[in-house]
């Protein structure tokens, strides 16, 4: 358990973060973590419906929600600080005492199937899923967190109970609390009220994805008004010592309206409305990617222009003032993220669960500050020399020019 006392705040936030998300699911169980997350809000013995769960927290003006990721699942609540006990009570209730009613399982299955179909109708999101399939082929990291229509249709209540029993156990859990709260009382409340099992039983080890040996292009033909393109390469894990250099590379390349992609591809060349870059990091792998939303007639030109920007990062070091701006951007974003009790609780819990230790904000900012232009170029050389992968959704019957653009 990690606690940050923030006496000047009026709220308190608590996060229950479990190690394990879609990465631990085999093909048959794909989507089970996300399914469980939905079901935990359907009712417990004491609060038999989703309305009663929501009412308990919203009745005091609070928020309750959850998210499933590839390596973790988080349940959280943010409440006025005097209602911290209530926040803990409701969260403990849903993760330990959910009814998992068979009728709810069937109803929620339909909801999740609709959710999966909804993403397929949102090409700017769906193209990222396709890109992740290319980055981590035949691996759970390359699958949609919510699973597939086949797996979600097949999952039964026994699968769900078995998986929840194996993974929702104390050794897999970190609890984070932040805000105006009484630390001792919070610890006592956790000790008395949380009734999860203590030993581990039958958890699956997370296998590392195989090496990528060649660049690949995947074109999904759709009669969209815009072409949606994601291209990028495998990159660094969140454990890697160069992860801050990668973050700065990403900031320089495509985060915000002063990034190279925005200024050159959108403002100077007028090739795309939305162009930005992003990273994703896991225990042993990650990626850096670029998204382009572009008129189909300009899609290949836009990809070529992005390739030019990627080459430029490898060819020369970024200027000191550009690096300084990226550092201020990164440090400022982290500070803003930690403005809320929820942000702090998540930040601490994430570090404890995935990194195995906690850095203070000053320690983290010092690591960002220590990155040099040479570090960024070294990371660019390393990461961007890997085989590029590209997913495209748009009115394209062929892929030859896209393959040529990335050397596939």
């Amino acid at each position: 358990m990690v606690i940050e006392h923030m006496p000047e705040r009026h709220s308190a936030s608590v996060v229950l973060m479990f190690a394990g998300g879609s990465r631990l699911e085999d093909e048959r169980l794909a989507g089970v973590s996300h399914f469980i997350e939905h079901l935990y809000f359907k009712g417990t013995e004491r609060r038999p419906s989703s309305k009663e769960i929501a009412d308990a927290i919203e009745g005091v003006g609070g928020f309750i929600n959850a998210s499933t990721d590839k390596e973790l699942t988080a349940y959280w609540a943010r409440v006025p600080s005097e209602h911290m006990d209530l926040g803990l009570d409701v969260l403990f209730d849903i993760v330990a005492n959910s009814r998992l009613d068979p009728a709810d399982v069937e109803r929620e299955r339909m909801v999740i199937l609709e959710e999966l179909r909804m993403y397929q109708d949102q090409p700017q999101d769906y193209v990222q899923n396709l890109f992740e399939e290319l980055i981590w082929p035949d691996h759970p990291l390359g699958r949609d967190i919510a699973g597939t229509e086949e797996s979600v249709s097949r999952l039964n209540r026994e699968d769900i109970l078995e998986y929840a029993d194996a993974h929702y156990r104390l050794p897999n859990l970190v609890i984070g609390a932040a805000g105006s709260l009484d630390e001792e009382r919070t610890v006592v409340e956790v000790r008395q009220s949380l009734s999860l099992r203590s030993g581990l039983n039958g958890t699956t080890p997370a296998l590392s994805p195989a090496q990528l040996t060649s660049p690949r292009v995947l074109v999904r033909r759709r009669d969209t008004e815009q072409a949606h393109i994601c291209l990028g390469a495998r990159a660094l894990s969140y454990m890697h010592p160069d992860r801050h250099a990668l973050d700065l590379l990403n900031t320089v390349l495509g985060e915000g309206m002063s990034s190279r992609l925005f200024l050159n591809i959108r403002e100077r060349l007028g090739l795309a409305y939305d162009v930005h870059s992003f990273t994703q990091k896991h225990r042993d792998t990650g990626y850096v990617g670029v998204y382009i939303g572009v008129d189909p007639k300009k899609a290949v030109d836009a990809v070529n222009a992005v390739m030019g920007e990627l080459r430029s990062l490898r060819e020369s070091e970024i200027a000191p003032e550009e690096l300084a701006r990226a550092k201020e951007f990164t440090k400022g974003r982290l500070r803003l993220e930690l403005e809320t009790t929820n942000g702090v609780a998540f930040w601490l819990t994430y570090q404890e669960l995935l990194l195995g230790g906690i850095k203070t904000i000053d320690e983290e900012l010092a690591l960002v500050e220590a990155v040099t232009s040479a570090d960024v170029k070294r990371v660019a050389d390393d990461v961007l020399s890997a085989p590029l992968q590209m997913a495209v959704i748009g009115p394209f019957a062929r892929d030859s020019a896209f393959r040529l653009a990335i050397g596939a």
Partner: protein
Amino acid sequence: MINAVADEAGDEEITPTEIAEAIRDCLELSEVDRAPNVRRYLGEALDAVSDGMPADFVAMTLYAALGALREGA
């Protein structure tokens, strides 16, 4: 012709039919087989024109054919 295609003149100054005819003429030249991949890229460009792919897509494939020809020269 490639520059005209790249300038997105495909539907005015040079039509898809003219582009396709020019590519077919190229495919009949013996030089095409002197370097690897030239015939392949020209074929892909011709297919792209037939499928109504955007001008920059066709141009990219034609530039690849030109590049392959130069490399083989």
